[in-house]
């Protein structure tokens, strides 16, 4: 029998606000333990929560980005359960009146090959709600340590419908969601820093069946590969259970990334009784049309819309747009540079190949240096969009050869100098002095009379050998157009 998996995801995203969800102490990753704390974060006697307006606005932005219905009024509830990473032993969350409902995420499945676009479809969302994050527990052999720095950070939970069917769709969903959220400036969505975390609800049923099978929740899917592997493992486990006729229990399981399997955490019978009730310490949020309109004006273009626009308006091939559009900063760079450049296609190629290569190299080097923990981005890199546009325009004008440009670019990247500066500095101004070129061309014809004869005899391609010789003699610094014209004149 053939089986079909049904998967829904709960994605937690940390909003990149300066201060926490319900108090004004700072947020951040990698700070000394327990230094991003105050009476509210630690849940001291008498501490009271006060909402962070920016976190609410960012949540509205996410809702608009994902096409959700934004609630006119949403409120705060307490989710009660005891856990050492949760200072108050209740989490302030949204139970029956979340900030956003519905919505969808556009996903793209892999194409036949990397140069071909795959199929697109929408994954339906159930809701998006805002809550506070918990602290971080580190387990040791005999005990555990708790750092509350993360506790109280604003956390958005994006819940999808059970609308995915295989690990590839899950991966595509997470990628698309992440690209959109990063582009909108909501979060860096760095899974390694816990800024994006994922739980999956998985069930399996015989293909063709319409009712859902027994649902199993998988926790701890905290890397992209973890999500893929964990979901894949759990589907296999459930299919095998069905084939063997063993019962699938409704339970929560934990993905174990080292051993690559899921293990039971708690069964339905042991499920928490969260005793949700409205938090009496907080007032509800009212969101009016004017506020929504204001936020809507700041929405960025969605990554897939941008990709379609690049393909249609600029005629860029899929292979290029797919590399560009996953990275909104690269797109921003590209758009700024291409507005100044004479060839969008050439610019796109340079951005996707040369700029990306140098950037990834620089960031790789950075991992070994202790000083900077901020990754270099396209817009913060030493080659400005203006500078790259200048380089491309020099090539287009025939004032610089592609080869020389390729040689100069890494140096521009490391030194921050412009192409014009480097050309001057190295004395690489193109040999366009007619007299000198004429001598070198004449020289080349003299040295290769065979090629000269063939060209004169009508074999057009023979001129290339002569051009090559001239370029070699000028170490690539001659303007190819000028060389071409001079050779033809001398051969005629």
């Amino acid at each position: 029998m053939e089986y079909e998996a049904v998967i829904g995801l709960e994605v937690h995203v940390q909003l990149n606000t300066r201060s926490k969800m319900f108090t004004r102490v700072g947020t951040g990753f990698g700070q000394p333990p327990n230094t991003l704390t105050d009476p509210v974060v630690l849940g001291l006697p008498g501490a009271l929560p006060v909402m962070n307006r920016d976190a609410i606005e960012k949540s509205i932005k996410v809702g608009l980005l994902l096409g959700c219905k934004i609630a006119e009024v949403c409120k705060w509830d307490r989710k009660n359960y005891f856990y050492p990473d949760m200072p108050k032993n209740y989490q302030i969350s949204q139970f029956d009146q979340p900030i956003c409902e519905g919505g969808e995420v556009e996903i793209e499945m892999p194409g036949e090959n990397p140069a071909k676009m795959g199929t697109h479809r929408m994954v339906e969302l159930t809701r998006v709600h805002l809550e506070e994050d918990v602290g971080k527990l580190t387990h040791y052999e005999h005990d555990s340590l708790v750092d509350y720095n993360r506790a109280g950070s604003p956390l958005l939970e994006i819940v999808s419908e059970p609308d995915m069917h295989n690990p590839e769709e899950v991966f595509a969903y997470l990628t698309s969601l992440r690209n959109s959220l990063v582009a909108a400036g909501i979060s860096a969505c760095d899974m390694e820093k816990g800024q994006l975390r994922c739980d999956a609800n998985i069930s399996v049923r015989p293909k063709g069946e319409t009712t859902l099978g027994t649902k199993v929740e998988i926790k701890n899917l905290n890397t992209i590969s973890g999500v893929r592997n964990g979901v894949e493992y759990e589907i296999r486990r459930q299919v095998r259970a069905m084939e063997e006729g063993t019962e699938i229990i409704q339970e929560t399981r934990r993905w174990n990334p080292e051993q690559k399997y899921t293990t039971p955490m708690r069964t339905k019978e042991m499920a928490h009784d969260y005793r949700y009730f409205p938090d009496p310490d907080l007032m509800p949020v009212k969101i009016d049309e004017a506020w929504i309109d204001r936020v809507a004006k700041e929405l960025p273009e969605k990554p897939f819309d941008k990709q379609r626009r690049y393909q249609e308006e600029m005629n860029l091939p899929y292979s290029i747009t797919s590399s560009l559009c996953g990275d909104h900063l690269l797109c921003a760079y590209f758009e700024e540079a291409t507005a100044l450049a004479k060839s969008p296609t050439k610019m796109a190629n340079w951005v996707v190949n040369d700029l990306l290569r140098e950037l990834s190299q620089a960031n790789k080097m950075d991992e070994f240096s202790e000083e900077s923990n901020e990754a270099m981005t396209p817009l913060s890199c030493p080659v400005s969009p203006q500078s790259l546009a200048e380089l491309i325009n020099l090539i287009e004008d025939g004032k610089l050869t592609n080869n020389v440009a390729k040689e100069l670019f890494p140096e521009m990247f490391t030194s921050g100098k412009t192409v014009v500066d480097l050309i001057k500095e190295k004395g690489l101004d193109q040999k366009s002095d007619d007299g000198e070129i004429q001598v070198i061309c004449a020289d080349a014809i003299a040295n290769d009379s065979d090629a000269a004869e063939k060209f004169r005899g009508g074999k057009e391609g023979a001129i290339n050998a002569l051009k090559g010789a001239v370029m070699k003699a000028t170490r690539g610094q001659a303007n190819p157009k000028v060389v071409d014209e001079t050779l033809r004149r001398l051969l005629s």
Partner: protein
Amino acid sequence: MSEDAPMDIDYVANLARIELSDEEKTTYQRQLGDVLKYFEKLQELEVDGVEPTAHAFPRHNVWDQDESKQGFSASEALKNAPQSRQDQVVVPKVIEE
């Protein structure tokens, strides 16, 4: 309500995470049973169409701007902790429930 569904004292004590002696369980079972019985007049009340009161004087959008202020140092944060190590709170091994 208390008669057809007596309070499951073990379940509730576990929810509230309070260890009770057998004697306490018996006492609380009886006392809380009485209290719930006393609360029965609430069950008889007609409340259809009545809006619940969560706040005596409800308002909306009581918030702060997103500005971060200096918080505790690790030693201030841990001053009252029963046990700490490496600037973190020590808890006995966490066993999943």
